[in-house]
C-alpha cells in the first residue's frame, strides 16, 4: 500500500493509494475523498462490544470504516478532525498506546482495544486509552506540531499533550513540585519513565476550549 501525508505539518491529510484487494481501516468521519472503485464496509470491527468499548471508553468511533479497492486501483483522502500533524508508525507485532482521539487509520492487521488506565485516568484525558497491536501500518494525529521524544530515564509531559507512547514506558500523574504550585496552578503532569518514544503535540484542544469559555454568552438572570 502506498501512502503520502499531504500538506504537512500544519494541515496534514493522509492520502492512500490502494491496489486491488488492499484495504485500509479508518475512524468514522475521516474520509475526505475517494477516487476509483472503493468499497466501504462499516462495522464495529471485533463485534459490538469492541465498538462500544472503543466509543464509550476511549473516545473513538463506535463504527470503523474499512475501505477496499475492488477491481482496480483506488485512492482515498483521510483527514483528522483537527489541524496538525499525522505520524505513520509501523507495528511489527508490538504495541503502542494512543491518547483519546489520536487514532486516524490503520491497515487490516492492526487491532485497537481499550486499556483501563486506573484512577489516574480520571485526572488525565480519560479513564481509558487506546491500545494498538498487531502487524501493519498505523496513522495517528495530534493538534499542532507532533514531536517525537526519545526517553531514556525520565521525561515530563503536561497533561493533555501526550499523543502516543511505547509500552516500554510507564507513567504516573504528578504535579509541579512546590506547595504553592499545588495550591494555585492546575498543572497536572505526566511523568514518564523507562526507555522508549513519546509523541507530544504542541497545542492542546482543552486549553483552547478553556480560552473560549469566557466568550460564551452569559445566562440572563431572571
Amino acid at each position, binding site marked *: 500500500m502506498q501512502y503520502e501525508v499531504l500538506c504537512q505539518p500544519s494541515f496534514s491529510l493522509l492520502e492512500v493509494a490502494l491496489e486491488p484487494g488492499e484495504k485500509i481501516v479508518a475512524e468514522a468521519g475521516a474520509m475526505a475523498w475517494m477516487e476509483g472503485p472503493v468499497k466501504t464496509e462499516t462495522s464495529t470491527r471485533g463485534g459490538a462490544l469492541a465498538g462500544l468499548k472503543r466509543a464509550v471508553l476511549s473516545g473513538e468511533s463506535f463504527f470503523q470504516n474499512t475501505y477496499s479497492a475492488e477491481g482496480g486501483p483506488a485512492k482515498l483522502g483521510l483527514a483528522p478532525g483537527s489541524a496538525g500533524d499525522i505520524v505513520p508508525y509501523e507495528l511489527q507485532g508490538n504495541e503502542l498506546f494512543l491518547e483519546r482521539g489520536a487514532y486516524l487509520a490503520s491497515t487490516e492487521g492492526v487491532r485497537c482495544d481499550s486499556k483501563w488506565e486506573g484512577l489516574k485516568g480520571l485526572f488525565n484525558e480519560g479513564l481509558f486509552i487506546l491500545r494498538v497491536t498487531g502487524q501493519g501500518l498505523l496513522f495517528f494525529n495530534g493538534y*499542532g506540531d507532533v514531536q517525537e521524544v526519545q526517553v531514556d530515564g525520565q521525561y515530563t509531559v503536561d497533561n493533555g499533550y501526550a499523543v502516543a507512547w511505547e509500552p516500554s514506558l510507564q507513567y504516573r500523574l504528578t504535579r509541579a*513540585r512546590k506547595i504553592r504550585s499545588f495550591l494555585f496552578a492546575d498543572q497536572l503532569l505526566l511523568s514518564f519513565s523507562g526507555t522508549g518514544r513519546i509523541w507530544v503535540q504542541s497545542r492542546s484542544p482543552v486549553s483552547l476550549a478553556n480560552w473560549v469559555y469566557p466568550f*460564551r454568552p452569559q445566562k440572563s438572570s431572571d
Partner: protein
Amino acid sequence: MNVEILERGAFSSALVHLEPGEEFTSESGAMYRASANVDIDVTTRSFGKGGVLGGLKRMLAKESFFLSTYRVNDASPGEVALAPVHVGSVRQIDVVPDTPWICTGGSYLGSGPGLRIDTEFQGLKGLFTGESISFVKVSGSGPLLASAFGRIIEHDVEGELVVDTGHVVAFTEGLDYSISKVGASWIQSWLAGEGIVLRFSGLGKILVQSHNPSEFGGLLGPQLPER
C-alpha cells in the same frame, strides 16, 4: 542557555535548553514537555504589588498572572518546551538594557532570568466596548519570547502608527502611545467595530499579529451554550 524556536508550519513553539543552574520563566501553563531534571515552581514573582492577593484580584479580572520558573536540579543539561494556546508564531526578542519591551498580557510567553517582568501598569479600558488590555513590561537583558495569534508583522515606527489593541504583540518602550479612537467620535469608532486603538509615535519597533484573538473569541462564543 539556548532558545530554539521550533518553526513547524502554523504551530510554532519554543524549546529552551538549560545548563545546570540556569533558569527560565514563562506564563504558567505554557510548558508542554520538559526533561525530568527540570523543577517547576509556580509563583507570583515580581508580578506587581500585593503578592498573592493582588494576584488573585488579577485572576478574577480574567488575566492569567502566574509565572512558572524552570530550573535544572542536577548537573546535567535540561530542556523545557513552551507553547501558546493559539495557532501562530513564536518570536524571540533579544532584549538589551537600554531598550525595554512591552508585551500585551496575552502575548508574553516566557523570558530569561536576566529579565525583569512588571505588570504594574495595566488595564486600559475601552469606553464603550469593555475591551481591556494589559501590559507586561520586560526590562534587563536576555531572551524574551512573544507569541502571536497568526503571523507576526514587524513595523519600524518613525512618526506615527495606529494599531488596533487586539493586534498588538509587543513594542519597544521608547515609543509613546495613547489610547485613541479611529473615527471622529467614540461612537463612530465603536460603530466601526474598532473599539480602542493605540496611537504610537516616536522611534521604535512594533510587532503586530495578523489576527485578533478577541475577534476570534467573539465568533466562537455565541455558537456555544450559555455559561
